[in-house]
């Protein structure tokens, strides 16, 4: 019984940490974007205020059950991924639900949420939502390919599908970022799409699509989505750190590493205009795919 309680406690703490970190990162990104644009920008805790305000909205509407449950699907995906990705090396953090952190399971559970939310967006009957969803899914096909190539290269090179094993490998061989540079490049370029920052933000283009899939969501629904987004961001960043940067031994190291990774899509986005969907797909099937191939060749040769 103790262990069950310990597990549940671990789960809750992990989720809270992920939420806080994700929110802060997003706030920081707004701040940094503002500074890059020579603005003062909102305070770094602005996102917390926004989230709180959304949560305190008094009324809410929904267009049916799927719309109502959409954010819950999203939450399932983000929390499941945060539970499966080991936060720190050697199980120093709560052991969680990680089951060795199976990467294929992770890949699939990560699309569970977007698909569920897409169903919610679909039920609103808002054409903008549906258009946004189709763009998002198309773009997903785009970036999944190099991303999977990178993962497959790693998995086959080290003969494991377990994230824990990959982290353990890095304890001896050093960061995979250096030993498998092409996989890292492909994965990083795919990450640009995964975070949906500019130039890959056509999914929710505010003026064109009225923020796309979320255009009918407000109040508690948007709040849930926002929280899920931040948890998911944390999960993805941790995944990258675990995969390529040797994981982290403590929370501070984790924060530094994740933030470094986070800077890449953020800074890339700040200086890029927006791609159309097919341009985005072609982008991902250009250099990232090439790097993915190189990663596979690298994995085959070594």
């Amino acid at each position, binding site marked *: 019984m103790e262990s069950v309680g310990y597990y549940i406690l671990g789960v809750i703490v992990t989720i809270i940490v992920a939420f806080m970190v994700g929110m802060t990162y997003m706030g920081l990104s707004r701040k940094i974007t503002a500074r890059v644009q020579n603005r003062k920008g*909102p305070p770094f805790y602005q996102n917390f205020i926004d989230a709180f305000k959304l949560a305190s909205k*008094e009324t809410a509407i929904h267009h049916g059950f799927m719309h109502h449950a959409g954010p819950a699907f999203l939450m399932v995906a983000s929390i499941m991924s945060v539970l499966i990705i080991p936060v720190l090396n050697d199980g120093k953090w709560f052991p969680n639900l990680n089951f060795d952190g199976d990467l294929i399971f992770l890949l699939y559970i990560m699309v569970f949420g977007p698909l569920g939310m897409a169903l919610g967006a679909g039920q609103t009957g808002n054409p903008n939502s549906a258009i946004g969803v189709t763009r998002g899914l198309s773009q997903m096909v785009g970036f999944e390919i190099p991303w999977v190539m990178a993962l497959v290269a790693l998995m086959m090179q080290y003969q494991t599908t377990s994230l824990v094993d990959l982290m353990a490998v890095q304890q001896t061989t050093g960061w995979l970022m250096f030993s498998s540079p092409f996989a890292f490049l492909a994965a990083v370029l795919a990450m640009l799409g995964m975070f949906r920052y500019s130039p890959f933000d056509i999914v929710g283009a505010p*003026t064109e699509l009225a923020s796309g899939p*979320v255009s009918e969501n407000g109040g508690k629904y948007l709040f849930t989505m926002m929280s899920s987004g931040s948890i998911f961001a944390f999960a993805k960043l941790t995944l990258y750190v675990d995969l390529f940067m040797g994981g982290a031994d403590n929370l501070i190291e984790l924060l530094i590493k994740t933030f470094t990774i986070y800077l890449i899509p953020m800074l890339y986005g700040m200086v890029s205009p927006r791609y159309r969907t097919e341009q985005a797909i072609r982008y991902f099937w250009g250099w990232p795919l090439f790097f993915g191939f190189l990663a596979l060749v690298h994995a085959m040769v070594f």
Partner: protein
Amino acid sequence: MINDKNSQKIADFIKNWARKHSIWVLAYGTGCGAIEIPPTMTSRYDAERLGVRGAATPRQADVLLITGYLTTKTLKRVIRVYEQMQDPKYVIGFGSCTINGGMYYDSYNTIKVLDKYLPVDVYINGCMPRPEAVLAGFGKLQQLIAEGKANGAQKYKDDHEYYRGNLRKIIGNKYEMPLYNW
């Protein structure tokens, strides 16, 4: 605990503080006023530092910003957009057209006084108001929110018949307006 007045007060205070610092604006750019929004938002005046931020759809927005004259035709849409917004919600009338018709005082199809049709919380005077004035307007709104006085939505709910009656007067009975739906 929940019925406790003090804790309710504290909760209200926190909520209002959050609402005050997070104002998502749906700019209904009907008239020439829309041109003043970009400078307000961009680096020169940077409204985002106050927590003011654009929202794309009424479902997410807190503030409906009416930037200019409203014809009878757009008025219907604006009211619908307002009703689609979720509580708590505020209206800012922007420019003299919303106050007294401005230069369209004798036009056959623009309304002259916005607050007959929507519960305006803050008017921003000027033709056009400069970004400074806009920021001042937001500041005033924040102040009202913090004090808990920005209760236009409540007014709209309470005096719904009055607002709807005014609307009926100009659009006639032909146009099917849905019932009140936030």
